[in-house]
């Protein structure tokens, strides 16, 4: 565990692209991955012949039971014209494409391949909310499922333990949601591009046009405390604490670092990789942190010779608002039990000392589960290369960014650090 990791050969990211994230009636995940692939090709500054790609690693979680189709990597390989190159699917629940990214890095670092496409895709919206919830819960621990836990339920239980131990409350979850929604309108690929204030104004306007009594919310937190506007899903987790059901695709092009500048003068380098596994609620070390994340962070920081203070912007796996509080502590950005105070003080805002989820996070950007890990890294790619537009972190000296991806209820966790040189 404490062994210092290193790559046998340096690996760089030279291209990245994602589809629009949303719920699509008329497009499947093949269509969405094709969109991501075209966007990736356009992102390679000096161009690329796709025939030079050696292999594809594709993260995908739910295809088997949401669209009754398995073996999606070969289908995608055909859709983007990579046949007969090898295509391999990785599955780690909501961390599936972070695992694809890692496999791609290892394949290049070993010297076996020079250029690998890594990505992920998910098609979730063709099923009812209840079916999606039940399908996702397949990645929970069997004992929890038998006790009636859902995904939001597991995070609800974690929230009650966190509140009890550290004195936080529902308003601290609301602060995470409001912050994510403030970043969302700045991300044109996001599923929700509205602030909480926009949503309130919309509801007030609708009430006005229907001649109904106007809601009397005093501010965003008052709106989020209204059970009509924000019903409980798995108390204390409410609707606005949850990421949406999403469709989307994302991919990145990895190459051996000695050829990176053939593709761009501004590659990013993979400097830290960490992955851990975790246990169910009954066996976990503690209910207020994820041992898998702590292990992944330790491994990645050790490999990179960096610490939490060096990470200038980070995407964390905010499947539920409480998760963001847990992760920013587990990754060492804030001490255990201090994360909620840091959020309340604005430290994780776009213009804060430690910008977290500048993309809007899973909450607003969307969470097509198999695509998320790579989509998070794409946000870091755009931020470090100063291509994030209106949501660019206001720091002219951005050099180090990271992304943290979780599968299941903490069963898998990854942490990946990218560097611009």
């Amino acid at each position: 565990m404490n062994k210092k990791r290193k790559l046998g050969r340096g690996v760089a990211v030279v291209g990245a692209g994602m589809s629009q994230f949303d719920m699509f009636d008329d497009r499947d995940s093949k269509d969405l991955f094709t969109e991501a692939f075209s966007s990736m090709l356009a992102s390679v500054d000096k161009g690329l012949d796709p025939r030079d790609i050696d292999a594809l690693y594709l993260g995908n979680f739910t295809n088997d039971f949401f669209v009754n189709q398995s073996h999606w990597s070969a289908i995608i390989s055909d859709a983007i014209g990579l046949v007969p190159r090898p295509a391999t699917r990785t599955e780690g629940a909501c961390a599936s494409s972070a695992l694809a990214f890692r496999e791609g890095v290892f394949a290049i670092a070993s010297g076996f391949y020079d250029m690998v496409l890594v990505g992920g895709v998910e098609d979730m919206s063709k099923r009812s909310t209840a079916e999606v919830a039940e399908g996702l819960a397949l990645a929970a621990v069997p004992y929890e499922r038998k006790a009636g836990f859902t995904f939001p339920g597991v995070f609800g239980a974690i929230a009650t333990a966190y509140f009890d131990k550290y004195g936080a409350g529902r308003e601290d979850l609301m602060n995470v949601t409001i912050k994510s929604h403030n970043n969302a309108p700045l991300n044109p690929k996001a599923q929700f591009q509205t602030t909480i204030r926009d949503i309130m104004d919309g509801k007030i306007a609708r009430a006005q046009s229907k001649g109904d009594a106007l809601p009397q919310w005093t501010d965003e937190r008052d709106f989020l405390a209204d059970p009509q506007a924000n019903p409980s899903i798995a108390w204390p987790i409410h609707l606005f604490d949850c990421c949406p059901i999403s469709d989307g695709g994302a991919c990145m092009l990895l190459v051996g670092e000695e050829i990176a500048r053939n593709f761009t003068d501004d590659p990013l380098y993979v400097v830290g990789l960490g992955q851990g596994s975790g246990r169910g609620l009954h066996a976990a070390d503690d209910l207020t942190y994820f041992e898998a994340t702590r292990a992944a962070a330790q491994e990645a920081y050790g490999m990179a010779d960096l610490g939490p203070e060096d990470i200038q912007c980070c995407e964390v796996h905010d499947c539920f608002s409480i998760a963001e509080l847990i992760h920013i502590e587990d990754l060492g950005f804030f001490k255990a039990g201090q994360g909620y105070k840091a959020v309340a003080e604005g430290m994780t805002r776009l213009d804060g000392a430690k910008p977290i989820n500048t993309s809007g996070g899973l909450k607003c950007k969307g969470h097509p589960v198999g695509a998320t890990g790579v989509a998070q890294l794409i946000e870091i790619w755009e931020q470090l290369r100063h291509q994030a537009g209106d949501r660019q972190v206001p720091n002219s000296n951005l050099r180090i960014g990271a992304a943290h991806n979780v599968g299941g209820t903490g069963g898998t966790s990854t942490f990946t650090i990218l560097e611009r040189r």
Partner: protein
Amino acid sequence: MAERPISDHWFEEFLKEEKIMGSRCTACKTLFVPPRSVCSKCYSAEMQWEEIASKGRLAAFTCIAIGPSFMTEEGYDRKNPYCTGVVELTEQTRVVARIEGVDTQDPASIKVGMPLSAKFLHRDSGDKPKTFLAFEPQITENE
């Protein structure tokens, strides 16, 4: 009792007999609930069944409004949420279990730390009877 292999299957069979059974490692003495057939601390395979006292305190909980189909079939929904949680047993180990006898309409009344005792929910779905582990607030007995 006859030697039953240590497995999730037999853990559930014991629940039908209203017993919570864990496994204890004879080498390092660690207790596991639900049982493990190999010790994840010292890797010994010398494990023994051990009955658990069936009492504990609430470590974490949630009141679920949108549950899986087997729960909605019991009549739970947005208007009638059910509680499930994590129970810290007297033996210092934890189990996940349904929490009964609490007011899910007023989750603020449910307190982490409250003392609980086990209750066995016998469900007869066709030819496959099943028992779910649950806990409920401990009734203080008047001596």
